[in-house]
């Protein structure tokens, strides 16, 4: 799946997906949930929060 396709599926801009991938932006819970749904994964599997 490309960034464009994922962006379309979750209603976000491609730059936002790129920023999330690069750790430059922390998405809202809603967007994180939508991305997880689009990728058939859980939020815990996608995002790792370092203490």
């Amino acid at each position, binding site marked *: 799946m490309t960034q464009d396709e994922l*962006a379309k599926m979750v*209603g*976000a*801009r491609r730059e*936002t997906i790129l*920023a999330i991938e690069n750790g*430059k932006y922390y998405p*809202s819970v809603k*967007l994180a949930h939508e991305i997880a749904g689009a990728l058939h994964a859980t939020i815990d599997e996608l995002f790792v929060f370092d203490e």
Partner: protein
Amino acid sequence: MKDNLKLVLLAAPLALLVGYSWAFAIPYYSEEDVLDRAPGPIILGTIWAVGITIASAIIVRRQYRTVRVGLPLNDERSKMIVVRAGYFSFLISIAWWILLNAIVISNTRTFGLPAREQASEALFGGLLALPVIFFLVWPYLAYVYRPDAG
């Protein structure tokens, strides 16, 4: 709101701004020896008009491509950048306004105007500062928060 309508609402004021910028710059071209008499307005006016035209073209082209491929014009990240740009430009413009008024009140610089006109110029200068600062801070923050920043 449909993204096509949003694009029109973005492009229309930008086109107006480009038009106004050239409308201010062009009359100087017809004056003879204007570059010898008063080079400042024509040079600054032309730089401003060219800059606004190029910036507007880049913005509209990028947004048009975004709409064409079916992506939204705004999302939570782009809105966050706009909100932060508004916050910073508000603070900067308040500081600018206080500085401008302090200069006028203290009479350290008269701008060659009588007191009443000077006060109204300071008021106008303060009001004008907010959108001008906003349109400088916005692209700066877009650069700072660029997704591929190292």
